[in-house]
């Protein structure tokens, strides 16, 4: 393990650049002549870059390569699922959701069903999912700095928590769209350039092949993974359906001017994510050749960071390691700040705003940010170390078991009732979060029960959908009166001016 300060400088550079763009990105004053330039909406490409930048987290940047290294080709479902989630979002949810005018998921619940109690349940779930997603970002930062400099693992978590907490709480992320868009291209560069060079080096070494065995056989249960079929389906369900329910995804969609621009943006996101996800599995596969000893250890997640140094060595290795470290920190920072903004918004508006004790909006937002960052930070210090991508997929599973039924049924099924939606959120969220809590607290478990708890989506998602449908049908006399109006708002094409 090389201990050097170059990656640290790269990380500092990322932090500084992030902060500068975030603070001064829109500070370029416009004079009269380009008023309209100053007030032009974000293009689909920029917004798609921002969405992708915020979405590509520690799990994507580090986790996937580690999982592929350890468990083989089955793990390719992770990048596929993370991407296909946007396809499902595009087809089922994107445009109606934008037309609803909702900024957060609780807003959508209130807009569609008009219930304050449902809104409260949704708010609590947003906070819990956000925390669950923040946890691996902090852990990822810890192991990254540990792998590169030998610093104790809490140092990285502290760095990310402090930078994110301070920038979000002080409103430093004024031009968050440009920051996140920049982070996407930084991450793409940081993973693609080393990957291409590594493949080149691998050819120059005569393309050495490793004894793949079951590693390359689908559903073989390689790496001691039992019940591979069940787990694969569970991952597929969680990632395909969970993306739409992540708190920070919807918030970015709000920036689009209308439903059509939202669809276009989502399409570009699919392209950008597909381009990015080509590269992490390359690291996983080359890791089998050059760093096979990492497989199956907690350090598997660091294969992306260590591989360049191992293959090239010397000055080139240093430079590439620094580049990868910069990309990894861009991943932690962008996802963590996007999530913190979302959680803090929901906390300050829906939970702290219920009493006057916490002061005005600005003060509440600061308190909310503090709570949003500190809770998962403490969890990251005490919780057992799971694979990064596994933890993130748990957040996806909870989102898929709660907000997916709310969004899909809310948009496409006029007979959804408040009770049906609330029951789905409580049952789906309760079962998925219960499984997650058990795994984080006492896991990992073995046997089929262990598989059910490890990857709960395959049973919690159908359970939540079933609950929503059954309860709604049993309370069919309580369909909210404003349902038709809400449905018209969701589905009427943008060209129809409904304001009359």
């Amino acid at each position, binding site marked *: 393990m090389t201990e050097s300060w170059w990656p640290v400088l790269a990380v500092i550079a990322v932090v500084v650049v992030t902060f500068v763009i975030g603070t001064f990105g829109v500070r370029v004053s416009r004079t009269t002549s380009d008023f309209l330039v100053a007030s032009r909406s974000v293009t689909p490409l920029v917004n798609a870059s921002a969405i992708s930048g915020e979405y590509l987290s520690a799990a994507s940047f580090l986790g996937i390569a580690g999982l592929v290294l350890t468990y083989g080709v089955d793990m390719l479902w992770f990048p596929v699922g993370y991407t296909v989630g946007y396809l499902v979002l595009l087809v089922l949810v994107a445009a109606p959701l934008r037309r609803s005018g909702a900024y957060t998921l609780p807003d959508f619940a209130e807009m569609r069903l008009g219930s304050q109690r449902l809104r409260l349940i949704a708010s609590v779930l947003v906070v819990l999912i956000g925390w669950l997603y923040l946890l691996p970002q902090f852990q990822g930062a810890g192991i990254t700095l540990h792998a590169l400099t030998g610093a104790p693992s809490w140092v990285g978590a502290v760095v990310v928590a402090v930078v994110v907490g301070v920038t979000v709480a002080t409103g430093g992320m004024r031009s968050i769209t440009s920051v996140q868009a920049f982070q996407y291209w930084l991450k793409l560069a940081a993973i693609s350039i080393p990957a291409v060079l590594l493949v080149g080096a691998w050819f120059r070494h005569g393309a050495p092949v490793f004894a793949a065995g079951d590693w390359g056989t689908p559903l073989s249960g390689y790496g001691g993974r039992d019940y591979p079929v069940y787990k694969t389906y569970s991952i597929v369900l969680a990632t395909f359906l969970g993306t739409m329910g992540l708190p920070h995804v919807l918030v970015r969609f709000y920036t689009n001017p209308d439903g059509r621009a939202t669809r276009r943006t989502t399409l570009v996101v699919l392209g950008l994510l597909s381009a990015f996800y080509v590269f992490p599995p390359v690291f996983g596969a080359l890791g089998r050749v050059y760093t096979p000893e990492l497989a199956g250890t907690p350090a598997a997640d660091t294969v992306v960071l260590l591989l360049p140094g191992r293959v090239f060595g010397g000055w080139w290795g240093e430079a590439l390691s620094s580049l990868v470290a910069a990309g990894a920190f861009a991943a932690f920072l962008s996802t963590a700040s996007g999530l913190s903004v979302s959680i803090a918004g*929901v906390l300050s508006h829906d939970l702290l705003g219920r009493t006057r004790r916490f002061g005005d909006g600005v003060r509440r937002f600061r308190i909310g940010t503090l709570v949003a960052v500190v809770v998962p930070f403490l969890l990251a210090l005490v919780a057992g170390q799971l694979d990064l991508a596994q933890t993130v997929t748990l957040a996806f599973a909870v989102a898929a078991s709660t907000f997916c039924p709310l969004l899909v049924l809310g948009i496409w099924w006029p007979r959804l009732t408040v009770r049906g939606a609330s029951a789905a959120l409580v049952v789906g969220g309760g079962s998925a979060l219960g499984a997650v809590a058990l795994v984080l607290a006492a896991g990992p478990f073995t046997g089929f029960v262990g598989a059910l708890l490890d990857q709960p989506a395959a049973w919690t998602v159908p359970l939540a959908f079933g609950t929503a449908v059954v309860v709604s049908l049993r309370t069919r006399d309580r369909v909210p009166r404003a349902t038709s109006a809400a449905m018209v708002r969701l589905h009427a094409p943008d060209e129809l001016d409904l304001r009359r």
Partner: protein
Amino acid sequence: MNPFAVVAAAAAGTFVAALARWLLHRRDLGSEADRATFATLHTASLAAPALREGLTPDAATAAARHLRTLLGSRGVALTDTERVLTAEGPGADLLDMTLVAPVLRTGRSAMTRPPGTAGPGLRFVVAPLVIDDRVLGTLVAVTDDATAVLARTTTEVARWVSAQIELAELDASRARLAEAEVRALRAQISPHFIYNALTAIASYVRTDPEHARELLLEFADFTRYSFRRHGDFTTLAEELRSIDRYLTLERARFGDRLQLTVRVAPEVLPVAVPYLCLQPLVENAVRHGLEGRAGPGRVTILAEDAGADCTISVEDDGIGADPEQVRRALVGEGDGDSIGVGNVDERLRLAFGDEYGLVVETGPGLGTKVSMRVPKYAPGVHA
């Protein structure tokens, strides 16, 4: 509307609330009579919210159950002048409009029985609902045992119901007033501005006809937006576009004297804001920024992203104003000079709640900064 009746109703409401509070906070619940009073007031308070919706079938149905408890009768019905709004309790369904017609006509309480029945049995005690000498409907108590006490009770309860409905009308008229103010604001595109803009355009007609043509088109678009008829809300993007047209016209007049800084975060462009909520602020800023000085003045317009809210501010570096005068303008006691600002403040509060009013920072000679917070989502608010 009779102001005395409104004041009286408000006073009665306050009194009832105070009494209920006093009763609630007493350690022992008092004598039998006190408890009865308490129960009555409580029942009345349960019926009140529904009645505050006005005299509609839904509101009548929601209130009927409590009114029946209040009357202690077998059943209860509410009618307006044309139909039975709700009929609750056994026998109430026998009521039809011909039975209440005399009461609607005379405005006096009366007792009737279902048609085709004779002797002792079902009776309807009908009391009118009167507001400002207009009979709006009736309250009907259904009973087997028509006593003078019940007749008196029915009349009193009908009076109380009338007061509640009057309050509902008050709410409605307040909303109508706000709407009328928006209309007035639309019509109120300052005549000075129209005059000045047209004069400025005229000055270009010979020297630069192309520019004059562009300005005229801007002027046409600006007036079209300002006079549009539909919708209380618009997107910040549209509002800014209109302000851009306005400022183009003002620049044609002031030239380099009017300096402008605009900084808008693209994230907040889709936010729904009350229609014409920025226009009066920018107009004031231009006027105050350039008034009474020869040199250039600067107007700064900022729209920034702040989590679930967005903050918008309009600032000028002009003569400023006395804070006390601004405060009076905001509560509507001004001399008409800044009527737009008070109107914007009120519409913001109406749409988003009291937390979202205008904030004005100013002092004589210090310039003026007017800022607002607007939530990105608020129930019922769509651009």
